[in-house]
């Protein structure tokens, strides 16, 4: 079952005539990992950043088409492109979390970092916050490393730890979907391995979309893969089909390293 449905979606950046991505049709399936791959500038990050409408931070961009998000309470789809009110945006971003390329710890303690989203969500009960922070840090496989220094600044952690902290922060608010924008491209191989394991582990609780430049990574962790090129979605299928038996010539050329 798709938790998100992207239908005839186009996106145009402010001050540009031509859309950067055109007519995308793509489901994000529940409790699956969907990888978006393609050469630089193909629009995969643009697509990912539309799914929580983080583009709206900068004025003048244009969305066309429909992006549906399943509401787990009512079991109905709602079109997130119709959102206009601030409190609806806040709800959307609590349902659809995001992890960035560079780790983005806030300038506060490890505990406060993870608790930040909870406070925004209006959870004030101290024991509940403490429990959720612990749960999230355990979920992000970071608890054992930081449980004795929760009140130390998050900036003191290593890059890999910071990225797992950001994942814990996003997981703490119990999102339906997590968007990963090249989450390991700033990390060393060992931290990358840890993050990949974590993403696979998270699949049982959330649905995941991940943008990656690393095709091995896509084939290692994802269930479905979408290949994009020059703003178009060229091919979408189960990951093993894309990597072993692609239907399109462009997909085959890209995954075999003939361009990209």
């Amino acid at each position: 079952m798709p938790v998100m449905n992207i239908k005839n979606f186009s996106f145009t950046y402010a001050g540009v005539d031509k859309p950067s991505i055109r007519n995308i049709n793509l489901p994000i399936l529940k409790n699956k990992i969907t990888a978006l791959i393609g050469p630089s500038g193909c629009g995969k990050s643009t697509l990912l950043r539309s799914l929580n409408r983080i583009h709206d931070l900068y004025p003048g961009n244009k969305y066309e088409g429909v992006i549906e998000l399943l509401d787990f309470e009512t079991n109905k789809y709602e079109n997130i492109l119709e959102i206009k009110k601030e409190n609806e945006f806040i709800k959307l971003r609590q349902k659809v979390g995001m992890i960035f390329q560079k780790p983005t710890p806030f300038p506060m303690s490890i505990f406060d970092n993870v608790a930040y989203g909870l406070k925004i969500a209006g959870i004030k009960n101290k024991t509940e916050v403490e429990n959720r922070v612990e749960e999230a840090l355990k979920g992000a496989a970071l608890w054992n490393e930081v449980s004795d220094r929760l009140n130390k600044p998050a900036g003191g952690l290593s890059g890999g730890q910071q990225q797992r902290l950001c994942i814990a922060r996003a997981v703490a608010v119990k999102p339906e979907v997590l968007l990963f924008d090249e989450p390991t491209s700033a990390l060393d191989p060992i931290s990358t391995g840890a993050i990949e394991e974590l993403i696979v582990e998270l699949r049982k609780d959330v649905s995941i979309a991940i943008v990656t430049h690393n095709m091995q990574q896509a084939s290692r962790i994802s269930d479905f893969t979408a290949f994009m090129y020059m703003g178009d979605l060229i091919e979408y299928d189960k990951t093993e089909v894309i990597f072993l038996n692609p239907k399109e010539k462009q997909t085959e050329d890209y995954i075999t390293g003939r361009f990209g």
Partner: protein
Amino acid sequence: MRLLLNKIILALSLVSALIGLAFLGWILVTLAIKGASAMSASLFIKDLVDNGLRNLIVGQLILAGLASFVGIPLGIVAGIYIREYGQGSKYAEFIRDLSDIMMSAPSIVIGAFVFALLVKPFGGPSGFAGAFALAIMMIPIVINTTDSMLSLVPKELREAGIALGASKYKVIFNIVIRAAKVGIMTGILLSFARIVGETAPLLFTSETSNYFTLDLTSSFPSMTVSIYSLANEPEESARDLAWSASFILTIMVLLINLTGRYITRNKK
């Protein structure tokens, strides 16, 4: 040939640096010798009328403090507006340009402006007018540092806050300001150091007073203005007093600057 050129350039820049430093050293040494020789504890206990400096030190700090009280919050909020809310709008760009021009406005012009605005209509110099002139000097400096410190905060940090469901003002006040805190603090200290040593804006706004006073509605003791008038007097003792005052002022500014630098360094 290239190596020779390299050496020549190196020598030239070294000499230039040394010339600059030599003058600075000369000033400091002269100040220390002339100032320290006239230094005594009574300077800090007596007022100018009794050949002391107490009222001047207190007065100068009150003027600069009052200016900061107005200038710092105004400058910070304006800086936040320019960088975070008005980003890219013509209005914000206009304010930024205006503030940059204000920063290089000759301080005597600001003094003259405040004279016309607050001294002439109210019938005489006042501490308020002096503090107001200093605040005008200070605001653009605080705007400029706040603006540039906020610009150093990576946009990913703002996006990460928004992506967690925080509203814009929460992202700014909980995350962005915190990330820029040290830089903004340093900027504030440096802008204070800058205005605490100003003379021209005070020359005909607060003027100065030989007596200890906290009454801001009449002429107010100012160390810098008194240095100017003491230095013009014929008696040796008056000029000694001017040297001591200069020395104290320099030490004050130096300490504030060093504190600013210390804070920045500790962060890294």
